[in-house]
C-alpha cells in the first residue's frame, strides 16, 4: 500500500554527490584517470631506465642490415637485407604455417569428429583414442616428436628417396620442381580470375532461380568445369608457357626446385594433429546439438542422406561449432610460435628472437610482435564472426 504512495510522489532529487548516476560517472573517470596515470608512469619509468643504461631505443633499427641468413623465405631475402625485411620473412612464415595448419586441422577435426559418432565401434574407438591421447600430451613434446621422427625416418641427401627423378625426399627436405612462368603465362592467370568471377555470378543466378522456380542446379559440377576448363583452354591456346626448374644433387645438397624443410613439415603435422583433436570434439558436440527429430523430418520429406547432412544438419551444427572453432584457430596461430624450438623461422624465432638479441631493443620488438599477433587474432575473429552471422538462422 505504502509503496504505491511512494511512487506517485517521486522522491526529491538527491544532492549531486549522492546521485547514483553522477557517482557512477565520477568513479569511472577516477579509475580511467588512474589507469592512464599508471600507463604514463610505466612509460616514463621505462624510458628513463633505458636512457640511464644507455640502451638504444626507437624504431630506426628496422632499416639496419640484418647480417644473418634465414633458411626459407617467401620473399627475396639475403644477409644484406634489413631487420625490417627479416620481420616480413618471419611474419609470412608464420602466416604460411598457420594458414595451412588451419585447413589441415579443420579437415582432421571434421573427419575424426564424425568418426567418433560412427556406429562402427572400431572407427569410433580409434577416434576416441586419438582425441584422448593427443589432447593430453603437451604440444611442445609433440613438435619434438614429429621433428625427430621426420628426421630419423628419411635418408641423407646422397641416398634420397626419388620419385620419377623429379621429387626427392631426404633429411634436408622434400624437393619438387619449381614452376618458372614464362612470358604469356599471365593469360592463364587471367583466365583463372575470369573463371572465379564467372562462378560467383553463376552461383548467384542459380540461387535466385531456385528461389523462384524451385529448380536446383548442378552448381558444384558446373563450377568445377569452369574452374578447370577456362585456364586449361588458355594454356592450350598459349602453348603452356611454363618451364620447370628441377632439383639436382650438387655437392652436399640438392640445389634448385622447391623445398619443404623438415622443420615446416614437423611443425605443420604437430599443429594440425594437435588442434584437430580439439576441433573433432567441437564438431561432435555441434552435430549432437541438432536434435534427431530434424533428421527424421528430413527423411520423411524424402531428402537423401547427404542432402540432409549438407542442408539440414550441418547449417544448424555450424552455429554451435563456429564460436569455439574460432578460438581453436587463434590457438593454432599463437602455438605456431613454439617453432623457435625446432628452427622453423617464423615471427617469434626470427624477430622476437634473433633480431631482439642482435639489436637489444626488447621493448620495441616485443611491442611490434604483440601488435602483429593481436592483428592476426582480431582479423580471424572478425572473419569468423562475419561467417557466423551468415550462418545464423534466418527466419522467414
Amino acid at each position, binding site marked *: 500500500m505504502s509503496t504505491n504512495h511512494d511512487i506517485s510522489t517521486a522522491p526529491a532529487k538527491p544532492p549531486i*554527490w549522492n546521485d547514483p548516476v553522477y557517482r557512477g560517472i565520477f568513479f569511472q573517470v*577516477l579509475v580511467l*584517470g*588512474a589507469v592512464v*596515470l599508471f600507463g*604514463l*608512469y610505466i612509460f*616514463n*619509468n621505462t624510458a*628513463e*631506465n*633505458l636512457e*640511464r*643504461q*644507455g*640502451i*638504444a631505443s626507437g624504431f630506426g633499427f628496422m632499416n639496419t642490415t640484418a*647480417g*644473418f*641468413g*634465414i*633458411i626459407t623465405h617467401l620473399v627475396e631475402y639475403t*644477409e644484406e637485407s634489413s631487420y625490417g625485411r627479416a620481420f616480413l620473412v618471419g611474419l609470412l612464415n608464420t602466416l604460411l604455417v598457420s594458414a595451412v595448419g588451419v585447413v589441415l586441422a579443420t579437415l582432421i577435426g571434421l573427419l575424426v569428429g564424425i568418426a567418433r559418432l560412427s556406429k562402427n565401434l572400431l572407427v569410433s574407438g580409434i577416434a576416441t583414442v586419438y582425441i584422448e591421447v593427443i589432447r593430453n600430451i603437451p604440444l611442445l613434446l609433440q613438435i619434438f616428436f614429429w621433428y*625427430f621422427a621426420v*628426421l*630419423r625416418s628419411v635418408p*641423407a641427401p646422397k641416398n634420397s628417396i626419388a620419385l620419377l627423378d623429379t621429387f626427392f625426399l631426404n*633429411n*634436408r627436405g622434400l624437393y619438387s620442381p619449381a614452376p618458372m612462368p614464362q612470358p604469356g603465362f599471365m593469360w592463364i592467370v587471367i583466365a583463372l580470375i575470369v573463371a572465379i568471377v564467372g562462378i560467383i555470378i553463376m552461383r548467384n543466378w542459380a540461387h535466385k532461380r531456385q528461389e523462384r522456380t524451385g529448380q536446383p542446379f548442378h552448381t558444384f559440377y558446373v563450377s568445377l568445369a569452369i574452374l578447370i576448363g577456362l585456364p586449361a583452354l588458355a594454356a592450350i591456346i598459349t602453348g603452356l608457357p611454363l618451364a620447370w626448374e628441377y632439383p639436382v644433387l*650438387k*655437392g*652436399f*645438397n640438392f*640445389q634448385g626446385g622447391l623445398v619443404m624443410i*623438415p*622443420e615446416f613439415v614437423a611443425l605443420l603435422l604437430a599443429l594440425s594433429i594437435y588442434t584437430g583433436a580439439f576441433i573433432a570434439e567441437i564438431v561432435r558436440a555441434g552435430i549432437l546439438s541438432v536434435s534427431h527429430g530434424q533428421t527424421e523430418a528430413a527423411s520423411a520429406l524424402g531428402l537423401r542422406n547427404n542432402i540432409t547432412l549438407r542442408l539440414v544438419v550441418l547449417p544448424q551444427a555450424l552455429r554451435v561449432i563456429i564460436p569455439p572453432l574460432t578460438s581453436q584457430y587463434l590457438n593454432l596461430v599463437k602455438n605456431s610460435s613454439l617453432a*623457435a*624450438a*625446432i*628452427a622453423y*623461422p617464423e615471427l617469434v*624465432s626470427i624477430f622476437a*628472437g*634473433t633480431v*631482439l*638479441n*642482435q*639489436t*637489444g631493443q*626488447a621493448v620495441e620488438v616485443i611491442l611490434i610482435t604483440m601488435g602483429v599477433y593481436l592483428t592476426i587474432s582480431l582479423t580471424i575473429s572478425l572473419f569468423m564472426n562475419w561467417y557466423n552471422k551468415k550462418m545464423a538462422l534466418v527466419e522467414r
Partner: protein
Amino acid sequence: MMKRSAIAFSAITATMATAGVVQATTLEDVKAKGFVQCGVSQGLPGFSNFDDKGNWTGVDVDVCRAVAAAVFGDATKVKYTPLSAKERFTALQSGEIDVLSRNTTWTQTRDTALGLNFTGVNYYDGQGFMVRKDLGVKSALELSGAAVCTNTGTTTELNLADYFRANSMDYKVVAFEKADEVVAAYDAGRCDVYTTDQSGLYAQRIKLKEPDAHMVLPEVISKEPLGPVTRHGDDEWFDIVKWTLNCMLNSEEMGVTSANVGDMAGSDNPGIKRLLGSEGDAGKNLGLDPGWCEAIVTQVGNYGESFAANLGPETPLKIERGLNALWTQGGIQYAPPIR
C-alpha cells in the same frame, strides 16, 4: 570526497616523480639479498655445466664464485640462472641477474647499444666448424652448399653469414634456440656442419653419439673474446667484476695459488702484499674488504688453476692454454697491475 581523491592524485604524481631516482646500487642489492645472481649457460662442459653431483662447474662458473668470494668472503653465495644465448642480454638489462658469465663474445654493439659492459676476457676463442669425418672435407673452403646447424642469438650466426659471403659460397643455416637441440639435430643428420666457438665444439662433441666420428676443421673464422658482463650505469659493480678477474690473472702471474696463499700472505714482495691486502687500499677502492682477492684465490683458485681444472689436458676437453696462456708464457692473457 573530492579532497580524498585530490590526495590520492598527488600521491600518485609524487610516486611518479620520485621513482627511478631512488635506486640502490648493485653492490647494495647483492649484499642485502645475500648472494650473487649469476647468468650462466644451459650446460656447456668446461664453461658452465651442471654436473652429475648437482654442482655448477666451469671457468665461467668460477668467475661467479670469485665475485661472491670477493663480496662476501664466501664463494658459495651464488645462485645460477641458466640462460639460452637469446635470453641472456634481456636478463642482464632487466636486472634479473647481477653478472652474466656465459661464454659471451665482447662485441662493439653489445658494449654500446645493448647497454652492457664487458669486464675483461676470461677466454680468447674463435669460431670453428665441425663435420663428420666420413664427409671427407679437409677445409672450411670446401663447404659450399652445406647445411649448417647453429644457435640463434649468437655472434656465430653472423660470422657464418660473413664467412660464406666473403668466400662466395652457398649455405643453408638451421638455427636453433637451445644448444642441446643443435647437437641433437646435427647428430640426427639434419646438417653437414656444426658451427660455434671452437671451445664450444670441443665441449659439445662429448655429447654426440660417436664423438670420434667427428672432426673440427682447421679454420678459425673469427675473434671471440669471451668475458663476464655487467650492465651500464653502475661503475662500482663493473669495477668489482673486472678486478675479480684481474685478481685471478695477477695471482697466477705472481705464483699465488689456492695451495700456497696462506704462506704467501707473509711474503715480502710488495706486489703480492698489495694483491693479498696487507698493503695498499685495493679492497677499499672497490668498496670491499682488504682480503677480497685472498678470498678469491683461497676458495676458487687463480686463473691457471681454474683453467686446468675445467678445460685443461687433464679434463675431457683437453684444451691447451694457447692464446690463453699468460703474456709471460707466450699467450695474450695480460691483466693490469694492482696498485
